[in-house]
């Protein structure tokens, strides 16, 4: 709720039944609390991602529990696993099909840098084919680490000032 409070506050707002804010703040607040992740679970990291959404770690506390298996409804892509060059086309196509604005988390060392797979078949870091917002180290990262990444994405969304008005 941070960004709502940031806006200038007139007196007696609650009593009069309305509040004032900037549209940019309102949009950011909505976006950051309703991230819909696209789970690109490519290998073992996907298991930790599932744990993150399950009841123990409960990603729903951050409003990001609505995993959708169609990229057209998502705005946060979590690349969880080893991306091979053969799979790279599919990953890029999925990314392109997601509507703007969109964010990407590279979960695990495999997607961040190729990890232990320094060989002919694995993409050495998904940033060579996709723009990445947050890298999460670990093999696999604990669910809390990925939740931290989601929170960092939320902070990033909060600072967005890209809405244009008028002309």
């Amino acid at each position, binding site marked *: 709720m941070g960004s709502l409070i940031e806006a200038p506050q007139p007196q007696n707002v609650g009593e009069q039944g309305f509040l004032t804010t900037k549209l940019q703040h309102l949009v950011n607040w909505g976006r950051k609390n309703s991230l819909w992740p696209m789970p690109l679970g490519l290998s073992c990291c996907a298991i930790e991602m599932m744990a993150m959404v399950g009841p123990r770690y409960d990603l729903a506390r951050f409003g990001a529990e609505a995993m959708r298996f169609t990229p057209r409804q998502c705005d946060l892509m979590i690349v969880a696993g080893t991306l091979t*060059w*053969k799979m790279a086309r599919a990953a*890029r196509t999925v990314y392109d099909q997601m509507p703007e604005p969109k964010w990407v988390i590279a979960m695990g060392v495999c997607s961040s840098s190729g990890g232990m797979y320094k*060989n*002919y*078949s694995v993409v050495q870091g998904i940033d060579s084919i996709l723009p990445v917002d947050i890298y999460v180290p670990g093999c696999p990262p604990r669910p809390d680490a990925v939740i931290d990444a989601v929170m960092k994405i939320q902070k990033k969304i909060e600072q967005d000032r890209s809405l244009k008005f008028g002309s």
Partner: protein
Amino acid sequence: MRTSPEDLRAQVASLAETFSDWEGVSLQAGIDMPQLTVAKENLVPVMQALRDGKFRFAHCSMITAVDHMPEEPRFEVVYGLYSPSCNQWLRVKTHCQEFEEEVPSVTGIWSGANWLERECFDMFGIRFQGHPDLRRLLMPEGYEHFPLRKEFPRDGIEPGRLYRQWDEGRRREGAEEESAS
């Protein structure tokens, strides 16, 4: 699976009976299971006899190859056969030269050999004659190299080239569509 040496000798003896009148087929005891070396010309009739003969090797469990560079013949194709009715394993080996990596396909005998042979082709470039659909299995279509050959570097040869070609083509198409509309 552990086989005692006595068992192994008995197995080899009873298998040897089957092959006593075959030419170019030699049988060794192997370390863990009997092992049959066959010239590739004889491969299909020998395999057929193994499946239909006394031991009934009904299951072709694996097909792989070994690259013996720089020795000649360079490639050794290895088949792992299992007979569920006799609880008996058998390893069959055949050889092929560099530049004529062709071995007759056994898909007519075990249809399950289809993907095993495709994988072997994908990794070693050994062409199985008579295979119904010899395409790459694991590496992308259009890749020219064979990763498990000895001369193949660990980091690959231009690993991202096919992706980048696809990406450039896609971007070009997008730009053309935009300028047309």
